């Protein structure tokens, strides 16, 4: 488990998940978005994530709530394998812009 947060610009933050995306990422994940300027765009890059559980889904939902309050946008990219299946079974396609 690891998170790499890259502030691409003042308005766009990329949160890159490496390895397991579960509760152990919670603190750093929250930190990654609470500090961002309001109206920011967030991209959660799942390219190097090997696994995600329901805690990760809960964190994504809270990120979405935060972003909606701030008037920003959030998308999830590079989903494949187990992470793609989890997002699909949870019907996250209705809530997020998801790219494979």
């Amino acid at each position, binding site marked *: 488990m690891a998170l790499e947060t890259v502030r691409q610009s003042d308005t766009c933050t990329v949160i890159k998940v490496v390895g397991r995306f579960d509760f152990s990422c*919670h603190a750093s994940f929250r930190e990654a978005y609470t500090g961002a300027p309001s109206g920011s765009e967030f991209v959660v890059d799942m390219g190097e994530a090997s696994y995600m559980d*329901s*805690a990760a*889904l809960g964190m994504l939902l809270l990120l979405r709530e935060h972003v909606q309050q701030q008037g920003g946008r959030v998308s999830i990219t590079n989903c494949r394998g*187990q992470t793609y299946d*989890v997002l699909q*079974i*949870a019907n996250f396609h209705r809530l997020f812009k998801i790219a494979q």
Partner: protein
Amino acid sequence: MAETDAKSVREALREYEASINAATSMIRGDLERARTMVRDATARLSRSFDALHNAAASQRAALQSVATAFYDSEGNGRSFASSTEALMRQFVDEVVRVSRDSVRIIDQLADLSQRVSGIVVSADAIDGLARETRFIAFNARIETHRAGDAGRTFKVVADEVKRLANASSTLSNQIRQNVSECNTQLAQVHKTSAGLASHDLSRAIESHRGLSGAIAKLDTVNQELDGMLETVSTSVSEAVRALQFEDMVTQILNATVQRVERLGEFSVRAVQIMERAPQGDRATPLTALVEEMRTLGDRVAVQQSTVDHGSVELF
């Protein structure tokens, strides 16, 4: 001599007539048996094919009822498969909702923890004040010593100030202890919430995949079954149509019986001519008879009205 010969000829002719009649009736009997055998065999085959057709139809109905129980193509949500899928979706939604709320509680715990840390800072500040107050009380006490008797009453005040400073320290220690207990409990809630938030969804994915696979498989089997039953149905119809050869065989056998009977009749008439007509008058009726016998070779039209329309001349 000639009379004896004529008598022998008559006897021979009578025997010939009897033999012809016996042979004709034997052939008629054989043909009748053949006709019965063909009819029975056809009836039995027809019944077998009907039974086969019915068995295939009930097999199809049984399999279709199983398929319908699992998979409802109209998707009205009553079938086993769609209700299971809905239940699974509801379950996953619930798990995700609980996870989100648990993570939210943990976020709130973090904020709460920060505020609790603020209380410790305040307790430390109270400690600082108590230390300063104690120092002031200590200094006041020294001053009362110097003042001697005049400072005696002030010494009581200084002691009281020291007692209050110590009480403040005790209070701040109590606050710190309470905060520490509070932190222990917060950590416990944190741990419990983290457990509530974390669920592996692999099994749900596997189940969902299994269910989708089973539905797809049933769909394929259902389609294949439709094709197979169509084939069985076509084959049975084809066989039933082919069985109509019985009709043709019966027509041929009937024609043969007629022919054999006419052959017998002709023979009897020939014998009668030989027997009854005077010797010089036999040629004309015999020639007429032979002429009539030629019609035996006429073809017999066999009707094939059901197999395909029109008639086919087989003889």
